[in-house]
């Protein structure tokens, strides 16, 4: 018998722990990547831009005299640089993203394809309106979907994100109050609210007055009633709320608020729990922004762009900002200026240039058409089902402060199960990174200690949820058993360990500069 011992070995190699550091500083598929400014060289260019033909410049003597300082790179170098950077990011496409209040659901690629149709993406906002009738029709269709799903009679489309939508809604309220010649300086905000609510109310020129929560995570109606008076402009309430609960006395809240002549602003961040099943219009809401990047799957893109249309009640509709979309005998038309107004319209102004986040509108409508009203309802139900499944599967090992009844689309835990373990909420969350998961939302809402808010969304299979639950149970048990090594200083397996945020804030370095390189070289 002839032994072939020239082939590749078939046994596993020795453990990595004993290996010397790599020569390159890279580790297999993990590459360390410099800043773009530390790459490239003068004279190189990744785009073949022709030299301008001879012409007489008309720049009026303010020509640039010094270099900008941009590096020169070829296309393959730029592509490699950004592909390598991308690999240091967690993403929905790579794993479950349990961020409470963020609704990190699947982003269908059909949406991307549709948004890139030249008939939408290659349109100028100020082209003659007869050349953009299809685009206006798309906006009108999306408006119809939003008004139907919310049961509201009007919608302002231009706000560019959720917080921008909140501001739009509060400005409509302010305008309505001014039109009634009333003085209402106060806005009530529950202490569990997302930070944008008080920030927006203050930005809109109102005084913020906090309402406490009850022990079971709902807004305290008695405290609310005590604070309601004719100097209150509005209440800003998130429903379902940030504790993951539906405000069960919502109709009473609306009635009490309306009784003193105030308005009900609803933060629509958690619409994904109820879309297709409950219409905010039936709850007495006067204004609500809709984060298209949450409920309607437009991508978060690492922090934007978003889109935040605001649905408005009959009382607020006349004050919607410019531009307005109207339909008449000639087709659809944008009203972009007060001089072209008709009827009882009295816009409070303009939120931004042009007509809103068209690219996001196409994606959102593509999502809505794909799901249909039936699918949207099913998606909400699955989102709620999945959150309750996680809650039920974890509440014996983690502590759920309001876990007696069901939750909506997110499950809230606090850190009391970590008491005396030496593990903090932060450690626990960072340990999840080592297990291949993005952490849940931490330390929010503020009404419970060491909050952990988990929103699995409807995009996860049961197998995926089971695996996630098993990992969290395992971590909770490890913490309680005092096996701290996997928590202290976690994550250990991510592209970076914990970063020094204190140093970053004390001596802010917000840009690359050439001198730093020179200093480092010395």
């Amino acid at each position, binding site marked *: 018998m002839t032994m072939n011992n020239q082939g590749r070995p078939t046994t596993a190699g020795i453990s990595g722990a004993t290996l010397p550091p790599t020569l390159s500083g890279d580790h297999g598929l993990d590459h360390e990547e410099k800043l773009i400014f530390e790459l490239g060289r003068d004279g190189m260019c990744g785009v073949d831009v022709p030299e301008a033909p001879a012409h007489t410049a008309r720049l009026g003597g303010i020509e640039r005299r010094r270099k900008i300082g941009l590096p020169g790179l070829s296309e393959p170098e730029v592509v490699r640089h950004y592909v390598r950077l991308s690999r240091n990011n967690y993403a929905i496409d790579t794993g479950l993203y349990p961020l409470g209040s963020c609704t990190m659901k699947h982003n269908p690629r059909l949406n991307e394809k549709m948004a890139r149709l030249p008939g939408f993406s290659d349109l100028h906002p100020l082209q003659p309106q007869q050349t953009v009738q299809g685009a206006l029709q798309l906006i009108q269709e999306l408006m119809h979907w939003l008004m139907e799903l919310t049961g509201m009679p009007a919608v302002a489309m231009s706000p560019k994100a959720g917080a921008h939508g909140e501001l739009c809604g509060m400005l409509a309220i302010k305008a309505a109050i001014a039109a009634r010649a009333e003085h209402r300086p106060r806005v009530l905000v529950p202490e569990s609210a997302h930070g944008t609510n008080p920030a927006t109310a203050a930005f809109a020129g109102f005084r913020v007055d906090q309402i406490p929560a009850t022990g079971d995570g709902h807004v305290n109606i008695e405290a609310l009633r005590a604070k309601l008076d004719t100097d209150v402009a509005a209440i800003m309430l998130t429903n379902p709320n940030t504790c993951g609960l539906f405000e069960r006395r919502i109709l009473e809240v609306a009635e009490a608020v309306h009784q003193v002549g105030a308005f009900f602003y609803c933060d629509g961040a958690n619409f994904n729990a109820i879309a297709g099943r409950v219409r905010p219009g039936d709850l007495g809401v006067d204004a609500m922004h809709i984060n298209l990047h949450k409920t309607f799957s437009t991508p978060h893109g690492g922090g934007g762009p978003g889109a935040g249309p605001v649905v408005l009640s009959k009382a607020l509709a006349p004050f919607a900002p410019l531009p307005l979309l109207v339909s008449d005998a000639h087709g659809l038309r944008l009203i972009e200026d007060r001089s072209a107004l008709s009827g009882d319209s009295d816009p409070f102004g303009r939120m931004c240039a042009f007509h809103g986040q068209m690219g996001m509108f196409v994606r959102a409508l593509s999502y809505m058409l794909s799901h249909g009203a039936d699918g949207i309802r099913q998606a909400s139900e699955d989102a709620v089902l999945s959150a309750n499944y996680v809650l039920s599967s974890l509440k014996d090992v983690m502590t759920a402060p309001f876990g007696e009844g069901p939750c909506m689309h997110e499950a809230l835990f606090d850190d009391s199960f970590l008491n005396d373990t030496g593990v903090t909420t932060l450690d626990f969350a960072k340990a999840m990174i080592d297990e291949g998961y993005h952490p849940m939302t931490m*330390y929010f809402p503020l009404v419970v200690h060491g909050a952990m808010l988990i929103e699995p969304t409807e995009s996860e299979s049961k197998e995926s949820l089971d695996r996630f639950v098993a990992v969290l149970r395992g971590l909770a048990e490890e913490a309680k058993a005092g096996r701290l090594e996997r928590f202290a200083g976690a994550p250990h397996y991510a592209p970076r360990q914990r970063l020094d*945020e*204190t140093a970053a*804030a*004390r001596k802010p370095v917000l840009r690359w500069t050439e001198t730093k390189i020179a200093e480092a070289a010395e």
Partner: protein
Amino acid sequence: MSETRFSKDHEWVRLEGDIATVGITRHAAEQLGDVVFVELPEVGRNLTAHGEAAVVESVKAASDVFAPVGGKVQEINGALTDDPAGVNADPEGAGWFFKLKIADRSEFEGLMRQGDYDAFVKEA
């Protein structure tokens, strides 16, 4: 001869003559964690007791510092602007925030003494 008192908002005041030196307590500094930024009032500004006087920020939190007693700002601790870590290093000494010329001594008398403040912190 100086005397130090404490407020429920975790500021300390050391009174020498009619000049009050104000800072945040050791307890407050520990609660805040690493201080990364301090915003101080302008010299010459008149502060009222319990009014906002300064801002102190850690990585994750920003807190208002209130004037425990009213008065006109005489001097500010510019060293904190360059090195906010000074608040953590010596909160009740070199990490002082500002000095006031006080208007009403009774405001000072109304504040807690060290022992009362320690008990107050322990309770909370």
